[in-house]
């Protein structure tokens, strides 16, 4: 869970977004 959260947050930060949404999770999901 923590890994999914951190990676999604990283993805949102990389996209300069203030909020993690399912789009960001979707991108990191395969790596999880």
């Amino acid at each position, binding site marked *: 869970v*923590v*890994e999914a959260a*951190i*990676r999604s947050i*990283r993805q949102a930060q990389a996209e300069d977004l203030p909020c993690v*949404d*399912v*789009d960001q*999770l*979707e*991108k*990191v*999901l*395969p*790596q999880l």
Partner: protein
Amino acid sequence: KDCFLSEEEFKLWNRFYRLRDSDEIKEITLPPVQFLSLQNEENRSLIKTQEPSSGIHQLSLSEWRLWQDHPLPTYQVDHSDRCHHFITIMQMIEGMRHEEGECSYELKVKSYLQMEDVS
């Protein structure tokens, strides 16, 4: 005869399959796997996704996610349980993509929440 290529096979490999220096892509790699959650704070921020040097193509695990929301045809061996789980999650994400604020999943699940289950 043994586990190595024969003379003939080697020629075939060399001609058709071997990546050469002249090829635009000289090497294929998978993205590095580290558990960010196990790193402490300082070196967690140090881990930059390194830009692979030229000629090395890093495969993307998410580039083809558009195709990953339904099981593709199989031949003799079915998709694994994990694969079916992954597909279901991708479908779930697709369904929630345009949801704003209130979350349908949460509303459905919340009614079953009993705090003694949590502790």
